């Protein structure tokens, strides 16, 4: 059932891209409504910087507007194409920021997208989510990207491999390592809370 729904959505995306290629602005707006939130979430958590992520997502949709005709449905789903563009733009953005920081033009470090929950003030649920966000931000870049593409983009291993330009085997490895590190982080936090309460 959910697979059928996803296929319908995918077909819908392809139709939208065809209409965008023909100059349909309404189709672009619809594509933004469908994928804007997911792409923004992916970019924000990958970059750790909300303003940069917003800029990247805008760039992605401008690129889609200009290059929609280049999308080939035979090579993958529309969502895979969108995430591939976003991942490439995020990598470019990260390099630009690193270069600016290196030359002393930019002293701003990681800017959390949302206020991280404080252990004293947040509810248990918020704490849990804040711990996951913290764990995500500590993962190596490629593990973080693979996990976010899986969880946020809901891409399968093959699609993640296409987005990252890697083999399916190495994507599986990245996911295994990333999940293990995240679980360790969650378990450490749980142990810390137990010690505190006892």
């Amino acid at each position, binding site marked *: 059932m959910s697979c059928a729904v996803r296929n319908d959505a995918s077909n819908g995306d392809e139709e939208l891209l065809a209409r965008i290629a023909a100059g349909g602005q309404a189709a672009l707006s619809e594509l933004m409504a469908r994928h804007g939130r997911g792409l923004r979430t992916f970019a924000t958590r990958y970059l750790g910087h909300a303003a940069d992520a917003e800029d990247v997502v805008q760039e992605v949709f*401008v690129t889609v*507007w200009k290059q929609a005709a280049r999308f080939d449905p035979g090579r993958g789903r529309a969502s895979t194409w969108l995430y591939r563009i976003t991942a490439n733009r995020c990598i470019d953005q990260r390099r630009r920021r690193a270069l600016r920081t290196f030359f002393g033009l930019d002293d701003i470090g990681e800017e959390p*997208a949302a206020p991280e929950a404080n252990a004293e003030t947040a509810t248990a649920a*918020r704490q*849990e989510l804040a711990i*996951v966000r913290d764990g995500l931000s500590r993962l190596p870049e490629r593990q973080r990207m693979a996990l976010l593409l899986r969880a946020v983009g809901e891409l399968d291993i093959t699609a993640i491999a296409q987005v990252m330009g890697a083999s399916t085997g190495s994507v599986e490895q990245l996911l295994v390592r990333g999940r293990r590190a995240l679980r360790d982080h969650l378990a450490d936090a749980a142990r810390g809370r137990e010690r505190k309460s006892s």
Partner: protein
Amino acid sequence: MTREEFEKNRRRFGDDIDAWPAPLRGPALAFMALDGDAGADGALDRLVRQAALVEGDDRALAREVMARIERGAARPSLLPRFLVAPAGLAACTAAVLVAATVAGYQVARLQDQPQDSELLALAAGARLADDGGSAIAADPGEGDPL
């Protein structure tokens, strides 16, 4: 969330975690993710999805994108985008290096030619000019009285 709490909530709210009250979902997913069951990876992915969620203004995004598109249409860039991208910059740098290398070889080849002829003349028994100039002294035998 402990196993006891999780089981108690499951009996109360059912197997579908999405149907549980919102404050219990995160801890429940974290418990499932750490539990090591078959669905642990799925639970962790759902937890990551929930944690990563970022609220944003979709209308503002659409407005900004349309404004960028209109600005781009009104003022085309002087440089092709490829040239300002990292790959383009790397390609340009490589092209400049190759051109400089080729030019260097050409200049060196032109400079080497007289030296080669000098060395050949020296090997044949000629004398180099004392002032270090490029002229080769006349054949040592030339002009000598027989």
